[in-house]
């Protein structure tokens, strides 16, 4: 991955990034976007943020979690409960939801010792157990009837910028982590835990940290989701399909990269909308096939493909 940075200097990346963000931020104000497109983009931003956060754990540390919906759900319900309880501004409720989700993520601490497949399977178990528990805890989540929030059209409209802001924050954080000492430490853990420990990189501390942060951000997106839909229910929020979604977005885009989850989330959301219109029954299978192809042929997913294309362009050749 460092090769990418050699050809694309940090200033270049920031210069590319800022105009895109500015354009996206101004888009609804200058163009006559249909409400439908506006909302679709909001959801896309939300998915991107979640995928990026998942990737910290799944890509940077290399521990693939199939249970992230647990944090998503906790964040969503905590935020919803706060909004229902007191006239707290929604963003504060989201942050509170994220914080609680991060703490809940720490509850998975004992499983972080496990490597590879054992960790992943443990996360499936944790995710499902969490779903059943919270569905049963009616007083908190409303059980299978779920929770309804008062409709706030203005907030739903503004969510576009809130979500965009979150994407900017999370992608900046991803990029900074990747380039920093922390990123190197995570890479060391990913490559060889024991060797890393020998070098003084405490696996437990860093994994806890990353898992908690990853969970907190995903929890935050859960709160925003609640504000968007004005109705959430535990089977949906904590569902296995939702956990799978995070995995698919990050892996299809390129697990371990910064651009990967962004691409993956965009493709995921758009493909879903398209398929829903014409071939709703195919979308899971299609993702399965994509996943297989990616693992076999291009482990860095879509961003890997882009990288290959980029290498063919003249601009990417280092100045001689």
């Amino acid at each position, binding site marked *: 991955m460092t090769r990418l940075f050699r050809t694309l200097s940090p200033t270049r990346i920031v210069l590319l990034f800022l105009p895109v963000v500015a354009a996206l931020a101004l888009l609804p104000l200058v163009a006559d976007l249909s409400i439908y497109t506006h909302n679709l983009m909001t959801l896309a931003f939300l998915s991107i943020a979640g995928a990026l956060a998942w990737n910290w754990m799944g890509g940077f540390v290399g521990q693939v979690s199939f249970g992230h919906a647990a944090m998503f759900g906790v964040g969503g319900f905590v935020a919803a409960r706060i909004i229902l309880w007191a006239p707290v501004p929604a963003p504060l409720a989201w942050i509170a939801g994220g914080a609680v989700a991060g703490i809940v993520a720490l509850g998975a601490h004992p499983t972080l010792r496990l490597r*590879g497949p054992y960790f992943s399977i443990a996360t499936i178990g944790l995710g499902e157990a969490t779903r059943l528990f919270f569905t049963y805890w009616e007083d908190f989540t409303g059980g299978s009837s779920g929770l309804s929030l008062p409709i706030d059209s203005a907030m739903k409209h503004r969510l576009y910028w809130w979500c965009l802001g979150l994407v900017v924050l999370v992608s900046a954080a991803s990029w900074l982590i990747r380039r920093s000492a922390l990123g190197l430490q995570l890479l060391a853990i990913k490559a060889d835990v024991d060797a890393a420990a020998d070098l003084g990189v405490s696996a437990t501390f860093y994994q806890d940290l990353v898992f908690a942060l990853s969970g907190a951000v995903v929890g935050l997106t859960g709160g925003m989701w609640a504000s968007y839909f004005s109705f959430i229910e535990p089977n949906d929020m904590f569902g296995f399909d939702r956990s*799978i979604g995070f*995995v698919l977005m990050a892996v299809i885009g390129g697990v371990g990269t910064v651009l990967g989850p962004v691409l993956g989330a965009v493709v995921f959301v758009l493909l879903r909308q398209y398929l829903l219109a014409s071939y709703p029954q195919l979308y899971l299978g299609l993702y399965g096939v994509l*996943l297989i192809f990616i693992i*076999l042929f291009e482990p860095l997913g879509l961003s890997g493909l882009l990288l290959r294309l980029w290498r063919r362009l003249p601009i990417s050749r280092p100045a001689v």
Partner: protein
Amino acid sequence: MERFIDLTVSAVLLAGLYATMAYGLGIIYGVLRVVNLAHGGVIMAGAYLGWVLHGRLGLDPYLSSPIVVAAAYLLGMFMYKALVRHLPRGPAGGPASLLLLFGFWLVLRNVAYLLFTGNDQSITTAWSTRSVILLDAHISVSRLAVLAVGVVVPLALHLFLRRTYLGRAIRAVAQNPDSCTLVGVDVERIYSITFGIGTSLAGLAGLLSATIFAFNPGSGSGELLKSFVVVVLGGMGSVLGTGIAALILAVVEVFAILVLPSYLTAAVGFVMLVLVLVFRPGGLFGHRVLG
């Protein structure tokens, strides 16, 4: 007292099914060091195949089991040759193999969905509602049959692994693949055969489970996790260990109704999985799952 007998009988019957499922997952892991995340999908496929044979040809599930086993075996060989073979072996291949097989599970799920729609199905035969009375407890005939198969098959497998040349070759490859190549064992062939055996057991378990439970294309994750609990708890390569672990899981699940509300008993398997992985990673018989 009657309640206690009922519960114990339930647990024993369930244990047979769990043992068969777990063995399928365990043998693949033991020999190839790959966790077959599509295990649940193969179980589901076995269930559907049995259902189709029953619906179209009127074949009683117990009679169609050889067909299902053979078909699942072929599926496993295909999975190995087309997909798993390309992965690097060992810890380096970890997440990749998981995701690859997970992708295949999604494909299986979708294929089943396209062919059979998402509705719940089950195999109903004349036996489905019959029961025998044993020790004052009503025991469903189907479950008894499942137990019988669940005991016979792992035993047969155990004998196969101990007594036949192929079985010994498989065990040798599990211990040290490189040395096996040196002495002329075709390791790749052993791998694909073992994968096939693993999936054939999964398919059989699916067929059996279809006679007592309902299933749909999304089924399989619970079975995967329970198989994993049994494998980790019982240690791989030990039929006795697997059997005891299966019994422990079944007993805990069934007796949980005495202390937990019914809705939460579904979570017992999942919680046990996490506890087993965290606290007793070596299983009952000391095999390591860490590192």
